[in-house]
């Protein structure tokens, strides 16, 4: 319980840090970059909305920094994120809510798949260390993970869309297809998701393989493994129930941290495939200097990663008594 409280406390502190960074960055930059953006807004918006944005970015407002800060925090928590410049006159929250499901489905599914597959390959590789499986699969994926996500995305487009014509080059569904819960729409969506999903999968799997394999190798030299073998247990039982079970814990702890990398890569993958998720919108916001949208998306990504870290922490402390007792 104490462990849980401390982790939640850390979650809140980090969230606060992210909010504060968001608040301070435009103010710290030489010549507040939001001034130019606000100038473009004038004449489009009524007084109240303009005022709220002036406070959010610290542009020609007379309020003290501290009161701006608290108004900003209040607006963040009540969902008053302002108006998007790119998708004028939509509010930021409607743009974010439209983008969110795409990313959660794409990145969520591929991350879980990558974790499961990578861990499995790591286990089998370490168990058959030095044999064919171990000298082929892990090195290939580790080399692939040295490439930038977006580059593999480009190559996937070149090979599977341009040359072979198997999959569409961009978007999340064909323009003009009406979203409905029927097979033609679903298969269309799946077809669009294959290439971006594969790209994220292939590049993120290497990290899991490497850590799992290294943990496994460490665990395999433990006495309890020798003991289990001496008892005559089957290889599969020793491999999964004795070795992998203990080796997987550090991998789970790493889950939270690695997620940051995956999300970062996914942003570029979405950009390459023009996949209308959070990452694509973030870059659209950057290109159009749409700071309200950019700030909010940054916060959403941060909160998502933090939540995943918190959940991974919870799982680890459920599975590993040591994580609960020690600091």
């Amino acid at each position, binding site marked *: 319980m104490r462990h849980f409280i401390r982790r939640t406390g850390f979650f809140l502190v980090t969230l606060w840090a992210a909010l504060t960074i968001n608040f301070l960055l435009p103010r710290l930059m030489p010549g507040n970059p939001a001034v130019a953006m606000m100038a473009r807004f004038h004449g489009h918006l009524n007084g109240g909305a303009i005022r709220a944005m002036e406070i959010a970015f610290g542009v020609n407002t007379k309020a003290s920094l501290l009161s701006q800060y608290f108004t900003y925090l209040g607006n963040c928590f009540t969902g008053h994120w302002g108006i998007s410049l790119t998708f004028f006159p939509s509010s930021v929250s409607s743009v974010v809510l439209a983008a969110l499901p795409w990313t959660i489905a794409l990145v969520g599914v591929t991350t879980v798949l990558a974790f499961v597959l990578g861990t499995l390959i790591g286990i089998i590789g370490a168990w058959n260390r030095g044999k064919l499986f171990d000298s082929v699969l892990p090195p290939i994926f580790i080399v692939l993970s*040295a*490439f930038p996500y977006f*580059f593999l995305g480009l190559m996937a487009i070149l090979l599977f869309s341009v040359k072979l014509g198997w999959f569409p080059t961009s978007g999340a569904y064909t323009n003009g297809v009406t979203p409905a819960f029927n097979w033609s729409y679903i298969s269309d969506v799946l077809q669009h998701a294959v290439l971006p999903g594969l790209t994220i999968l292939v590049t993120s799997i290497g990290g899991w393989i490497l850590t799992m394999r290294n943990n496994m190798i460490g665990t395999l030299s433990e006495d309890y493994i020798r003991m289990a073998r001496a008892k005559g247990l089957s290889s599969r039982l020793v491999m999964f129930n004795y070795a992998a079970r203990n080796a997987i814990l550090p991998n789970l702890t790493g889950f939270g941290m690695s997620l940051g990398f995956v999300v*970062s*890569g996914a942003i570029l993958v979405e950009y390459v495939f023009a996949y209308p998720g959070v990452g694509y919108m973030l870059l659209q916001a950057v290109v159009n200097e749409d700071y309200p949208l950019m700030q909010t998306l940054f916060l959403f990504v941060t909160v998502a990663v933090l939540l995943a870290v918190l959940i991974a922490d919870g799982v680890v402390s459920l599975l590993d008594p040591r994580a609960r007792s020690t600091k």
Partner: protein
Amino acid sequence: MTAVLEVNGVPEKPDHVRQIRRGSLSNFWRALRSSKKAIVGSGILVVFTFLSLFPGLIAHDNPSAETYLPSLGTSSAHLLGTTSYGQDIYAQVIYGTRVSLIIAIVAGLLTTALSVIIGVSAAYLGGFADGVLSTITDIFLVLPAFPLMIVIAAYSKNGGFTIIIAVLVVTGWSYGARQLRSQALSLRNRDFLLAAQLRGERKWRIIVTEILPNMTSLIVASFLGAAVYAVLAAAGLQFIGLGSVNTDSWGTMLYWAQNNDALLTGSPLWAIVPGLGIGLMGGAFALLNYAFDEVNNPALRPVRRKAVSS
């Protein structure tokens, strides 16, 4: 306690001590040299270093001059063809090496320096200072780095090289700092540090001459890790057009290639070759890092002898 060496009359350390010292160091080099990963990794880096020092020897065209017909295919005059602007792709790739390599090394060094400063001082100061520094480290560890980079770079509007380096350092130091802190913690209560304290050495001197030399391998490893990170992240930033779009670099080439739909319009080499360059450079640093890992952690070294059982 540490053995007291006879100082008067004997200017050097006893023979067996020297032998052990030299022995462990040469073991280290032998392990590194006999590692295929290390050889391949450093070989690639030597080639890239040469390219970035003397690009003019290998490519004769000006990388940004728009002097040829646009979108030519490969030929002996243009080994990789030309861009939609009529620039020689081969020359761009060769000249682009420099920026990527400099970013990797400079950002890697600065990131490592920051990691060392924060990690080691957290461990050595302990108490409240450690608490604060560790919390800051943990916060930066979980904050998603690339979105943060994008946001900072977007506000700073094409600050170019300096901004990219700064952004990489700010977002990349935390992982190394955490590792270095835990190793420094494990060193903190060793006898030789106590001896140094009893001799009356100053704190910073103890840190510089007693603690840091014992952490060399981890510091090198975190430099290599930071360099990989810098290569990939810088390429990502340049690819989306943050930083300056007019530098000759691989990421910038990819940016222009993407903006001109190079893949769809039949000049895929414009995007493929710089991407391969980025992958090779990142991979070279990563290979060195794995080799280093194996040297430091003998359990990971590949098994040479035949397995006895099963």
